[in-house]
């Protein structure tokens, strides 16, 4: 066995058409960014699923920890005043 160096993992983001954002499609292994782009084309856009591809090496992504979801996301839950329905308006005001 050679002294094995595995191809790094890349995350693939695809814009399905202009006007839409790039969305995470999945991941794949490639030696560098260029190969990741070429492989992404073959793996994720065989049927015109995309007009643009981003590749990011997985190790560069920092993700939040679900165990901290409470402190991260719960504070937003009791802020009903950030939603339009919180405000009482007379019916005469039709669209606002």
């Amino acid at each position, binding site marked *: 066995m*050679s002294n*094995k*160096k*595995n*191809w790094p*993992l890349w995350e693939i983001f695809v814009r399905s058409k202009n006007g839409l954002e790039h969305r995470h499609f*999945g*991941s*794949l*292994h490639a*030696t*560098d960014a260029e*190969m990741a782009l070429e492989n992404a084309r*073959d*793996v994720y856009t*065989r*049927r015109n699923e995309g007009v643009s591809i981003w590749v990011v090496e997985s190790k560069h992504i920092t*993700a939040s*920890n*679900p*165990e901290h979801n409470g402190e991260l996301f719960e504070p937003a839950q009791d802020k009903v005043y950030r939603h339009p329905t919180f405000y009482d308006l007379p019916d005469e005001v039709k669209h606002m």
Partner: protein
Amino acid sequence: MSEEQIRSLEKQFDERILRDEKIEPKDWMPEKYRKTHIRQMSQHAHSEIVGMLPEGNWISRAPSLRRKVALLAKVQDEAGHGLYLYSACETLGVSRDELYDQLHTGKAKYSSIFNYPTVTWADMGAIGWLVDGAAIINQVPLCNTSYGPYARAMIRVCKEESFHQRQGFEIMLKLANGSPEQKEMAQDALNRWWWPSLMMLGPTDDKSVHTEQSMKWKLKRKTNDELRQQFIDQTVPQANILGLSIPDSDLKWNEERQSYDFGEIDWDEFWQVVKGHGPMNKERMKARVGAWERGEWVRDAAMAHAEKKEERKEKQAV
């Protein structure tokens, strides 16, 4: 973590699945959930990869350019499906290399159907129609499974799979309406692939060891026997359209059940093939391992090249 804490986490976990919430890679999960998913998803990925071999056999001998581009595209899809599933599997903390290693050493299984030989062109039709047909029945419920990355991979797989079945059925239709020899070839392929396709849906419910747990985790939405019945009920009318006969003398419409009754499946054959004694087990693994080993220098060279390019870029930046 104390046992009590784990039990409480497991309870919360089960409740989340019950509420149809998805589980994502970084979420806490019971070790058994992780292991079971690695096993099932990798088996699924391996099946896609090994599944390319019986069809690859006919690419260079496809009877027309139309058939050839379709078969090539189908085999390429299978490579793609394998890659979606390996990636999904890797989100559970297992490396691609470990997964390949499990396949190559025989530690991991793949679908037993791919251990049968493809001896005529009609086998390309029968595989698309029957094998992909059975696979679709297995896979559609998995689009709703509890593990997010698996469900997302399956949605993509299912979208692509229906072309596979249609191209197979079209091959059968053409042969069935062709010369007597062609029709005979189609019938022969159906005769050989029918029973293995039924076995592909897994052992009967009373022999299936993982069903109960898998149902709870939505890794399975219907039992093997239910899936098999669904496959038979949907395929028999298609065989009638082809004018071919299903090789089962006990096959009969049951008015009361509104389903077909069918004959005994030769489970000894199934277990023989699963244990490695099918007609093509050795050949498939030899081809797969051989391709992997012969490609090693290419993978190493590509990596070395990428590193050299990176170094050069760094030097220029100084």
